[in-house]
């Protein structure tokens, strides 16, 4: 693990590394700090009750109700508490305070953020999680592995990606319009942009709302990302995946196939899709549900085509057991049970979580007309087979924003692309130097 100091790689001899709690209590001279007996209060006093934190609709209510009675094969039960927005803040605060920590916690696709503090979570491999490994997509399982090789993050759902597009608009514009034709016409990003140029010319519509979609669509499908497990900054190498994604995105911007409506303007993005000003999106399986709810009028008009090169993954969450977990074996039993192929199929039917176990799809069938005669379940489960294995680093979560921010500047503020790239690199350099990753 990297030693992190605020100044370069220069390791300054600290006056003894402090434990969080000692340092904090030391910062305030408080009578009761002295009286502290060091017990770490747990949320539930019931020794048989495991408390779990999750989001609304991130687990099947039916299965949770079962686990609230008893976790199959154990004599414990689960109390599932919903935590709304600011989930990470709540989880991190209780971990930092070393008190009132849940026994089981869900963690979003930003699990890499917790790699630097992986000691706070149990290695599920040591507990025997490997016995179910073969049930899961390999790439998803690997995303739960820390750089040290500990398996701390158990796979929940996944987000295989594809190109969503409005078949009616493509049709009117005289472009290829069936999923097969569109997929075949856009096997490379150059072809995809070329098709976008035709769309712009014929229907004055954009392929996607913002450049960030192209940039992330490219990277999410790439085996190489910003760093390797040894913290080598791959993006600095010539012809790196990040640089290729950048160049591809810049061409897309220059070809005017993005609508220049950045992500933080959700209302605008929706208006663009509803009005046909934008005819597509590169997104994950879970977006299908959002689209159906927010634009039901466009039902039947949307189709799914393979995105250029290969599908990627966007989103999908994990579960972890904090080091304070009351009964790790029972907690792991819960995780393997609620995520077995059969129960993931049930969760898909219940709350549309896209399964991370291929066998789940045997039990599932789709009946709906939103994608016409096309079956999104089949589309995305096929896509999930070819998602590449990749590694997301903690540092990527810190510097990735500089690149998407600068690509946004190129798109909406007309910034010179080379200048923007240099600025993104410089900003990343600054952050990584400050954190002691680069010198």
């Amino acid at each position, binding site marked *: 693990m990297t030693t992190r100091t605020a100044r370069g790689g220069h390791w300054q001899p600290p006056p003894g590394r402090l434990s969080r709690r000692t340092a904090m209590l030391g910062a305030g001279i408080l009578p009761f700090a002295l009286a502290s007996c060091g017990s770490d209060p747990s*949320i539930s006093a019931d020794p048989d009750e495991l408390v779990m934190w999750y*989001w609304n*609709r*991130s687990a099947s209510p039916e299965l949770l109700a079962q686990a609230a009675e008893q976790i199959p094969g154990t004599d414990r039960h689960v109390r599932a*508490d919903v935590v*709304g927005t600011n989930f990470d803040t709540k989880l991190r605060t209780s971990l930092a*305070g070393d008190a009132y920590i849940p026994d089981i916690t869900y963690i979003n696709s930003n699990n890499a953020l917790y790699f630097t503090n992986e000691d706070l979570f149990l290695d599920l491999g040591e507990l025997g999680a490997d016995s179910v490994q073969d049930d899961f997509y390999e790439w998803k399982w690997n995303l739960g592995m820390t750089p040290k090789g500990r398996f701390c993050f158990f796979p929940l759902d996944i987000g295989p990606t594809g190109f969503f597009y409005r078949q009616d608009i493509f049709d009117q514009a005289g472009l290829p319009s069936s999923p097969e034709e569109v997929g075949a016409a856009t096997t490379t990003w150059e072809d995809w942009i070329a098709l976008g140029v035709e769309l712009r010319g014929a229907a004055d519509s954009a392929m996607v709302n913002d450049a960030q979609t192209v940039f992330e669509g490219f990277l999410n499908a790439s085996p190489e990302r910003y760093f390797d497990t040894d913290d080598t900054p791959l993006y600095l190498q010539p012809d790196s995946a990040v640089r290729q994604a950048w160049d591809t995105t810049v061409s897309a911007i220059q070809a005017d196939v993005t609508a220049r409506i950045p992500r933080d303007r959700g209302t605008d993005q*929706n208006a663009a899709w509803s009005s046909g000003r934008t005819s597509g999106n590169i997104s994950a399986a879970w977006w299908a549900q959002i689209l159906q709810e927010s634009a039901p009028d466009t039902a039947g008009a949307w189709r799914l085509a393979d995105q250029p090169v290969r599908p990627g993954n966007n989103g999908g969450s994990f579960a972890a057991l904090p080091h304070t977990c009351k009964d790790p074996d029972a907690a792991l039993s819960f995780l393997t049970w609620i995520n077995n192929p059969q129960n993931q199929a049930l969760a898909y039917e219940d709350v549309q979580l896209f399964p991370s176990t291929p066998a789940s799809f045997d039990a599932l069938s789709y009946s709906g007309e939103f994608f016409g005669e096309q079956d999104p379940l089949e589309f995305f489960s096929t896509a999930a087979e070819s998602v590449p294995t990749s590694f997301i680093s903690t540092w990527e979560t810190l510097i990735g924003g500089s690149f998407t921010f600068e690509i946004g500047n190129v798109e909406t503020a007309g910034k010179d692309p080379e200048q923007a790239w240099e600025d993104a690199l410089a900003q990343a350099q600054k952050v990584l130097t400050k954190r002691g990753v680069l010198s």
Partner: protein
Amino acid sequence: MTALAPVPRTDTAVGTGAGPERPMNAHYVARGRIARAITHVCVVIGVLLSVFPFYWLVVMSTSTTAEIFGFPPKLTPGTSFVENVTNVLTSVDLLQALMNTLIVSASCAVLVMFFDSLAAFAFAKYDFPGKKVLFILLIATMLVPGSLSLVPSFILMSEIGWVGTLQALIVPGAANAFGIFLLRQMAAGSVPDELIESARIDGAGFFRTYWRIGVPMLRGGLAFLGIFTFITAWNDYVWPLIILVDPERQTLQTALQNLNSLYLTDYGMVMAGALISVLPLIGVFIIGSRHFIANIAAGAIKG
């Protein structure tokens, strides 16, 4: 005290002793009518601008998610209000959350009004050693950044065993610099020293003077402080989220935030929840704001 009396030294000659019986001249009345018409127009424009987003909240809470994100935006209320509210009620223990929030907000408001007005009255009307330093300290605490205190505050609460309790939301904010500063400024201008002096001569101690003279004269300020302390406590989100660990003991805001899902959020339902949480505040405001014009009845500018 070298303060200048803020009596306007102007040609309107406030102090000339003109009796209220003197009839208004016609010129003034005519000018008043035009002025009042302009006044009304300005106020109405301001009102429309102020009310519009609230109106939109009403529209959204009666619409489906699809209608909310439709284009062009729909400007009239939809028909899904009952459905949205039903969804809120089935997802959230609203009654329990309302009760908890009411306890927290009302306690905060009452404690803040009491403690702040006591302190403000002492600061505004009395001299005591160390007053200036203490007051500067008080103002300085208003400048202190608060957003990074989550972790140490959480540790503090867990040490004293208050995690998961409502007093963790009430006690730390039972007195605040903002209210003391506000009421001190109001008391400085509106409570006459002569009244306090005569109370002293009558043998009234500080607390009696405060209760008999300070509180009645600070009614408007107290009403404002009470209302806005109530609102702030009512809307507080991050600290309750951190400190409340028991699903049976949630506040309205933490409960409503749970309506947001990982991927798919029903915005119609979220907006209905937001509307439900705002309505009681409007009621509190209507009740409390009567005191803003408490002594206008005595006569301000009539007609």
